[in-house]
């Protein structure tokens, strides 16, 4: 019996001892590699600022990809990363879109999302009368003593970074006959009043040890989202400015990451409305539609183009022609006489028309007769601003590829990390992006990566971008910076 007790107690002890065996995994070694993250500066446009849901507001700033990156850089010696936040009282910033519900049409018509503008708690401090906008909002300016590391400026193009007065509210654009640059209110809020410093000069003066650089989207995006109406930046201009900017940033040995520009034609802004419109036309046996294409001219009517219904792009069925998200309110008016679409085009274009041009003169110059049926007649075609046709897509794609070549070449010459967002987002458009058991896609609303404006990412989309940048940085600088869990950041919240 004694023997039994002795043996059994040692067996029990053995068992209990083993109970403590929580498996150990050696702590991961995070390492900055050959990079120095002590002062990280983010260079870029709306994507860098954290723009989302058609506006810049506090939540978007908090979940900007530079902010997410800085939190991961903190594991490898990264410093503080202050941003030019809107205050809590003005947390809605410029205002933004929120999803309030869905329409409930009788089938087979499909439900579509209903959005509303958030107009309270804005950071708008007033309006400025410019050449193109009689009431351009300006925003609460950061305090002169504020330091911030995120230089994301919504709307900025590569073509703007060397423009003096780009952040000075007195740059109102001159006159129709003698136009001059117009200031950017998002840059203006970052500068002291009446400062003519260029964007490039302000950024370079921060003297970063590490930077991310994602510029150039707006040089082609404006052209694309306006249906080919707004100008596109010449490749040589883009390439020269880009080269000078990166030379300056790296002159004192800073390391960094350069991002290419995604193909804009795969974003929900261009892929959401067309397939629905095509289904509706097919159901009603409409063989084709009439659109307009190209830029407006004051001397000749805009070019008409007849498009077979089957040429409207649907990923499952083929076709080539894309409709913008902004076309959604107009397409239900198809097949009926009416002038809403063209009245709105006129209102949009007015700042670019000779002062005092009446609507009737504009319609006459373009050969528009709103008594004809909308969308199905040459007299009342679908405005070019709502369609990105294959010719315009070709122009956008060519420019994007040329810009990207310039960006890649320069990044390689300077030994910088490269996030090829063009390749990455093409993959997302094809297959979605899976992490931690969830496949997020490039679909509007349900995909969770793109916000309600169909162009800018959600916080989750920005987290995915941050991960891809970390991957590129780790590879280029032999660093090991941990990823984030993208699913911990919100996608689109559904009412």
């Amino acid at each position, binding site marked *: 019996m004694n023997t039994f007790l002795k043996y059994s107690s040692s*067996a029990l002890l053995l068992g209990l001892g083993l109970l403590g*065996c*929580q*498996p150990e995994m050696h702590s991961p070694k995070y390492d900055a590699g050959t990079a120095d993250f002590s002062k990280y500066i983010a260079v870029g446009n709306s994507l860098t600022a954290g723009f989302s849901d058609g506006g810049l507001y506090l939540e978007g700033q908090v979940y900007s990809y530079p902010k997410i990156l800085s939190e991961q850089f903190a594991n490898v010696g990264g410093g503080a990363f202050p941003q030019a936040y809107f205050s809590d009282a003005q947390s809605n910033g410029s205002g933004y879109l929120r999803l309030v519900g869905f329409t*409930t049409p009788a089938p087979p018509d499909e439900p579509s999302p209903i959005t509303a503008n958030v107009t309270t708690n804005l950071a708008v401090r007033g309006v400025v009368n410019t050449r193109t906008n009689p009431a351009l909002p300006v925003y609460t300016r950061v305090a002169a003593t504020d330091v911030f590391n995120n230089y994301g400026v919504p709307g900025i193009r590569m073509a703007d970074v060397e423009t003096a007065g780009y952040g000075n509210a007195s740059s109102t654009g001159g006159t129709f006959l003698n136009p001059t640059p117009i200031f950017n209110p998002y840059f203006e809020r970052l500068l002291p009043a009446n400062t003519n410093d260029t964007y490039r000069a302000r950024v370079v003066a921060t003297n970063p040890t590490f930077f991310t650089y994602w510029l150039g989207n707006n040089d082609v995006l404006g052209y694309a989202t306006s249906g080919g109406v707004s100008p596109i930046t010449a490749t040589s201009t883009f390439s020269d400015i880009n080269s000078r900017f990166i030379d300056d940033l790296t002159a004192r040995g800073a390391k960094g990451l350069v991002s290419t520009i995604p193909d804009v034609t795969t974003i929900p802004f261009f892929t959401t409305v067309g397939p629905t419109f095509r289904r509706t036309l097919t159901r009603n046996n409409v063989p084709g539609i009439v659109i307009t294409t190209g830029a407006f001219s004051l001397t000749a009517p805009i070019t008409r183009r007849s498009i077979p219904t089957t040429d409207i792009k649907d990923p499952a069925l083929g076709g080539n022609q894309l409709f913008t998200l902004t076309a959604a309110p107009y397409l239900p008016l198809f097949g009926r006489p009416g002038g809403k679409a063209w009245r709105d085009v006129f209102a949009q274009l007015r700042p670019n028309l000779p002062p005092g041009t009446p609507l009737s003169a504009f319609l006459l110059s373009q050969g528009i007769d709103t008594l004809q049926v909308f969308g199905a007649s040459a007299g009342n075609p679908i405005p070019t601003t709502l369609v990105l046709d294959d010719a315009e897509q070709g122009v956008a794609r060519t420019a994007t590829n040329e810009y990207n070549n310039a960006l890649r070449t320069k990044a390689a010459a300077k030994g910088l990390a490269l996030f090829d967002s063009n390749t990455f987002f093409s993959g997302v458009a094809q297959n979605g992006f899976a992490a931690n058991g969830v496949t997020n896609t490039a679909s509007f609303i349900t995909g969770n990566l793109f916000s309600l404006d169909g162009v800018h990412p959600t916080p989750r989309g920005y987290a995915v971008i941050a991960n891809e940048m970390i991957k590129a940085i780790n590879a280029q600088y032999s660093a090991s910076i941990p990823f984030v869990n993208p699913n911990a950041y919100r996608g689109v919240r*559904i*009412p």
Partner: protein
Amino acid sequence: MNLKQLLLAGGALLGTAAAQAGGFQVTLAGQKNNGMGGVGTGLALDQASMFYNPGALAMVRERGVQIGVNATMARQAFRPQYAQYGFDRELDNTVTTPFNVYAGFGPTEGKWRAGIAVYTPFGSKLDYGYNWEGRFALTEIDLKSIFVQPTVSYAITDKLSVGAGLVVFAYGAVNLQRDIPVQNATDGQYGHIELDGKADQKIGYNVGVYYKPLDKLSIGLSYRSHIDAHVQGGDVTFSNLPNSAVVASRFTATKFDVTLPLPATANLGIGVMPSEKLTIGFDVNYAQWSKYKQLEFTFDQPVNGSNTSSSIRDYKNSFTFRLGGQYKVTDAFTVRLGGSFDQSPVKDGYVTPETPDANRLGATAGLSYKFGEHFGVDLSTQFISIKKRTQTQDELVANGTTDRVAGTYKTNIVIPGIGLNYTF
């Protein structure tokens, strides 16, 4: 059906979403065997032969009743590739208590033996911490099963005996839960789905032959058949989904069906008795896991717009090697040692959170003490180390298995157990 299979199987049930936790592949059907690395096919130790090799039952000298219970205590660490906070996750610890009961009868000197066995080849309960990275694959799993096996065995000669058992999958229950990646605007919560169902009763068999050509050598072969665990009309419950009709219309399922193949196992065992006091056993088990291609749930109404949900498994057949021995210190007192190597049926890049499987190494120890003629106590303990295993998101994408989580898993399991037996 051994514990390992059931546990793995259970994990599989979690499936679609499912996730993780408990594919703890441990054979715990007899307390003496548990102390000897799980050998038993080539031995006639006690009534647990009904499980390990029904053919050996007729060669078990005593008749008797025995019960055993084990506490499976798993400790798991997980480091996600895409981590939320950049440190390791630990599973909320749970303990399961597989048990076994055997009663064997027969004439004292006759050639027949009969018996009945009851065992719980799996019982897995796993609860992932709040907001863990794999929440959209699995948040909780609770699996229970009870198998009943009436058995007969006949000694054709002094050296050769055969036996068979009817394996009745008498009771099985599953509860799986996970979050749905749809976030409602009211309070920012994610949707949640719970699948709860009972398995149909099913029947399989367990047959074996036992041959003892020499006093010092015995050989056994046994085969346990495949059983499909099938849940029909289990309940589907959603919570926290957005109110919009456009979403609600995509999540209207109320019932689910699922089938999980529990594979056949072929076993070969050799026993060596160099002396009266020492017995050594060696077992090889071959589990035909390759039938487990995918886990497919079908629903009566849509779940996220689809009436089915399929998740790739593509398991491969796997071997387990076991070695163990016992030494009779005195007539009343016996000590045991053993070890096992268990090949994982889960291929690289296919690891699911409910079954974070990898090759396993086991070390076991045990002892028995007899109080007089009839009554004995068996103690055993097993330590199972599941090898650290990493899968990357790139592997998951390449395999089409992105419904699970990329990262590194490591699990240790400790299983102390106690058995009581009364022989006559």
